[in-house]
């Protein structure tokens, strides 16, 4: 099922941020869990400011791929290079410091907190006041709280969720929860945004909104986006380049048009044994 994304951004010949050099490079990544080979010898790169989609049938290893980039899983072989610097070991905290933010497939919001608090939590790395300063409400703590609140309010406005900012996230419908999670990732002002099926379970209008947000973020801030997505229409319309995974191996890499006409990719999706 394809959807048409109305966005002037795609049609314009001028990108706000021209593609830069590869900001992320994955080299010969192999990942195993006990006896299960999740990823085999995967190599691809992500150019700065581009929108890169990772697609593939279920179980192809897409989420695992994101988890490797993010440092949640450590690959047995291969390396992750960020801005030319080869990282011997990535941890989630290190990834956060490098400016990599992500959302999760099964919504990892903080259920006990409101929308506002969840997104404020995303500002964590920019809030330096110690617990004592917060406890005594010293000037630095108060100033930080107000300044970061202002930034978070901008994000809330951008994502059009002002009306639910004080609602506990557990009470929100699925689509809005996904939007809040995007907001929390954006709060970190990331250089690279990893989105794991950001539009799963959404209806057409919600998907259009999400696409618009992603494109706007990429256009306004130049954020590099790596996203996993199942909706082919979305992938074809908004991504600059696509990586195709199947059974943990890379079977396609290129622009949407190139990938669409790749016989291996077609076979994988149609379930032809190979």
């Amino acid at each position, binding site marked *: 099922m394809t959807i048409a994304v109305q966005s002037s951004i795609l049609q314009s010949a001028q990108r706000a941020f021209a593609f830069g050099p590869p900001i992320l490079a994955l080299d010969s990544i192999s990942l195993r869990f006990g006896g299960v080979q999740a990823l085999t010898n995967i190599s691809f790169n992500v150019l700065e400011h581009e929108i890169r989609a990772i697609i593939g049938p279920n179980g192809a290893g897409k*989420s695992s791929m994101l*988890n490797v980039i993010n440092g*949640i899983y450590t690959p047995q072989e291969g390396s992750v290079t960020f801005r030319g610097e080869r990282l011997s070991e990535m941890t989630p905290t290190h990834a956060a410091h490098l400016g990599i933010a992500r959302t*999760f497939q099964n919504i*990892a919001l903080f259920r006990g907190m409101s929308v506002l608090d969840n997104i404020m939590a995303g500002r964590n790395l920019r809030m330096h006041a110690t617990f004592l300063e917060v406890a005594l409400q010293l000037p630095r703590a108060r100033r930080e709280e107000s300044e970061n609140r202002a930034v978070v309010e901008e994000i809330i406005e951008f994502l059009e969720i002002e009306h639910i900012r004080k609602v506990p996230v557990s009470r929100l419908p699925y689509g809005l929860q996904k939007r809040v999670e995007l907001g929390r990732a954006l709060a970190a002002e990331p250089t690279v945004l990893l989105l794991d099926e950001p539009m799963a379970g959404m209806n057409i209008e919600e998907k259009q909104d999400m696409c618009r947000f992603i494109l706007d973020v990429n256009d306004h801030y130049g954020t590099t986006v790596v996203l996993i997505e199942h909706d082919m229409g979305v992938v074809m319309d908004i991504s600059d380049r696509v990586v195709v995974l199947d059974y943990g191996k890379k079977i396609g890499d290129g622009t949407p048009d190139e990938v669409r006409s790749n016989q291996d990719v077609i076979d994988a999706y149609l379930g032809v044994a190979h």
Partner: protein
Amino acid sequence: MVDFWFFIEVLVGGLLSGTMYSLVALGFVLIYKASSVFNFAQGAMVFFAVLSFVGFMELGLPFWAALPVAVGVMVLVGMATERFVLRPLVSQSEDTLLMATIGLAFVIEGVAQLAWGVDVRRLDLGIRDEPINWVMDTTGMLISQLDITAAVVAGVMVVALALLFSYTKVGRGLRAVADDHAAALSIGIPLKHIWMLVWATAGIVALVAGMLWGARSGVQFALVWVALKALPVLIIGGFTSVPGVIIAGLIVGAVEKVAEVYIGPFFGGGIEGWAPYMLAVFFLLIRPEGLFGEKIIRRV
């Protein structure tokens, strides 16, 4: 030479009391295997079981009649627990269920004291807590008849339960229920019957454990705190493993006794109060799932 035999005596004493811990822990494992709930109230149930048993005897029932009556009471307690505590909370987090069973523990302890009073009672099982003569004569070791009996009983129960779980239809049904209630229901496993069976078994185990402990140190409220010792046993052995519980019980009992006897005097005693817990912490840091437990993998 005397020192060596003394050490063996201490060791054996520890191992034997360890089997008693295992017996209490067994009740936890049963409930956990069948419902994935950690029943913090198990200790209270041990106490209530044996207190009821003794209470019924005081009311005039003979030994062999009081036994099934006490078991019946435990089944009722179990069914009530399942109906009023576990079922309403079925979709809640593990922590919530744990707190609910802590509350349940206090309810059962309170009811036990309201129903039967707070006096310490003696329980005479006909086996005396006295050294076995021929052992004492040949080696100089003091090993209690009661302890040996307890160990044998515990061993028999564990083997029986292990066989039950692995090889019978009922056992398979229990494991299925523990894994996934809805799926078990959908293939026709009679949930209610399984529950009753589990609680009856756990009740019997609790009663036996309580009787052995009670015979040794009197039936009193302190029994409840003894049951807390079963926690390190569960951690070291793994929550889901019946053989694990036995091995872990032996380890905890042995370490506790040896530490108390050999290190205790330097500090004025009392080491056995905390040593098992420290041991459990140590295990948790190097092998969180216990010796025989299942590894827990969290998916992101």
